[in-house]
């Protein structure tokens, strides 16, 4: 048997993805309705944002366009969790019904196999919307464009995504212990709404919580400081790629530990 490296998993993922897209297109009505739904959700989010900030041109030293930048940043960084890890939402159903066991019989990584099953195409709308917002605010702020800043942007977007994925993995994996993880996941998802605000507007208690307990501040705030406030970047921002990888790794371990423990109790 050949070794199963990254290339192997990437190839498998692409094949599953291609098949999945093909079959999704065959549910045309569902596809169109969910796309429209996604567009409206994004517009509604944007409008409420706009109404709020029309009355406050500046918050704690953050201008309207900088806030918009944060907003776009959080949208883009939430895309991977939406697209690639959406099956986390079904985990509790599989665990509850005992169907989860069917994932344990393949000679590939359990976590990969489980997550590969669903690709949520709706995330792409959010991605497009986020990119649009980013470019628009980028221009308005006048950040300029160099390869270095683009590189920073990509690194920190990936960082932010990893953290969001980690949060959702960990939240979903709680179902291996408590069976119904919906409320935990819902709570985690609600927290992400705080990601789009600069953490300095919160009280110190919440600042601490959003940095170390529910690390939502890493989803947009700390990473985007590198772009928006290049002269005054806190150490936490530079550390955030490290945190991203660490959180992701820990959440993966937690998920796998839960899965092993769960199948260990029989069903």
């Amino acid at each position, binding site marked *: *048997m*050949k070794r199963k490296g990254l290339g192997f998993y990437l*190839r*498998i993922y692409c*094949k*599953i993805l291609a*098949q*999945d897209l093909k*079959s*999704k297109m065959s549910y045309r009505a569902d596809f169109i309705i969910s796309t429209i739904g996604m567009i409206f959700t994004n517009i509604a989010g944007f409008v409420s944002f706009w109404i709020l900030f029309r009355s406050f041109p500046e918050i704690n030293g953050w201008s309207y366009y900088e806030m918009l930048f944060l907003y776009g940043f959080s949208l883009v960084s939430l895309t991977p969790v939406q697209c690639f890890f959406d099956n986390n939402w079904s985990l509790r159903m599989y665990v509850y019904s*005992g*169907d989860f*066991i*069917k994932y*344990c*019989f*393949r*000679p*590939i*990584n359990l976590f990969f196999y489980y997550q590969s*099953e669903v690709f949520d195409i709706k995330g792409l709308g959010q991605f497009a919307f986020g990119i649009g917002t980013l470019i628009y605010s980028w221009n308005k702020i006048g950040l300029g464009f160099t390869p270095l800043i683009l590189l920073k942007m990509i690194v920190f977007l990936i960082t932010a995504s990893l953290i969001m994925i980690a949060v959702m993995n960990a939240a979903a994996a709680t179902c291996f212990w408590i069976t119904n993880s919906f409320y935990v996941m819902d709570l985690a998802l609600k927290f992400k709404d705080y990601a789009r605000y600069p953490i300095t507007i919160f009280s110190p208690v919440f600042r601490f919580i959003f940095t170390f307990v529910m690390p939502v501040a890493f989803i947009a705030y700390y990473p985007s400081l590198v772009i928006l406030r290049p002269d005054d970047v806190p150490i936490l921002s530079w550390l955030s790629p490290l945190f991203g990888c660490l959180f992701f790794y820990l959440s993966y371990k937690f998920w796998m530990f839960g899965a092993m423990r769960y*199948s*260990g*109790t*029989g069903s």
Partner: protein
Amino acid sequence: MSNIIEIKNVTKEFKVLNRREGLKGSLKDLFSRDYKTIRAVDNISMTIAQGEIVGYLGPNGAGKSTTIKMMTGVLEPTFGQITVNGNLPYKDRTRNAQEIGVVFGQRSQLWWSLPLIESFKLLKDIYQIPDEGYSSMIKLYKSLVDIEPLLHKPVRQMSLGQRTLSDILAAFLHNPKIVFLDEPTIGLDVSMKNKIRTLIHALNKEKNTTVILTTHDMGDVDALCQRIVIIDKGKMLYDNDIEHLKGFFGSYRTLKIRPDGDIKDHSDAMKNELAGRSVSVTSDDEWISILVNEDKTKVMDVLNVIQKSREIRDMKLEEISTEEVIRKIYEEGVK
């Protein structure tokens, strides 16, 4: 023949919370650490050779699935050791998975929205099946069953029978050394059951695949298994040839009676009339069955007794069926 599976003194224990009754009990349970240990599998040993078909039987909750989960590497034995194909399944779950196929009767492992052929192609990549192996397997499938209409149908649109068939084909696709089938014919119609039995038999012959089959359908056992293993309450009751098993009960025959009038009443009355003789009386909608131990009681005597007080419309005499043998073992054990 070499042994592909070796199970040595395997025990599996689960810790279960002692649950209390009622709302108050549930509240107490929230904080309770009061666990009890349940032995799902209790000191089981067996070896299985390459190419065997083994019927693994037992009443519901006997520990069959637990044993299978240990052999597939999903569960770790509490005590004892299992080797499958030279691997320790729990330690090398993925390596073990490469060499086994698993079908759980009602839980399809195929991609729900994909046509079967696409699932096959994905499995080909996942199991890294070489091209020749894959195409010869597909060719073999085509010679055994009519899969053409299934190949391009999404799994979600299939009937239960078609889905089970597909799952079995998928489990054999990477030419595994062992295939575990957990109640493969559950809920299927007679003709589909027959199709699936023929398929399993043919694949076992053709590829010398070891098949471990759990079922409650004695038709499966009669059609497929030379050897059966019976467990109950986690303990092994029997492990031998199926013929040998029938020999145990060779002197048993079943007398089937259809009397005039209500079958239930007659059957209750007969139980009284025949008390003291070594017989057991059961009834269904059509027949009253009397299992007679001919070493102790003559069938003619039984017939004499029961026709004294009633008209018999119809009767027949049957050799003991596997089903009844198994039932007797569940109820009384092997003596």
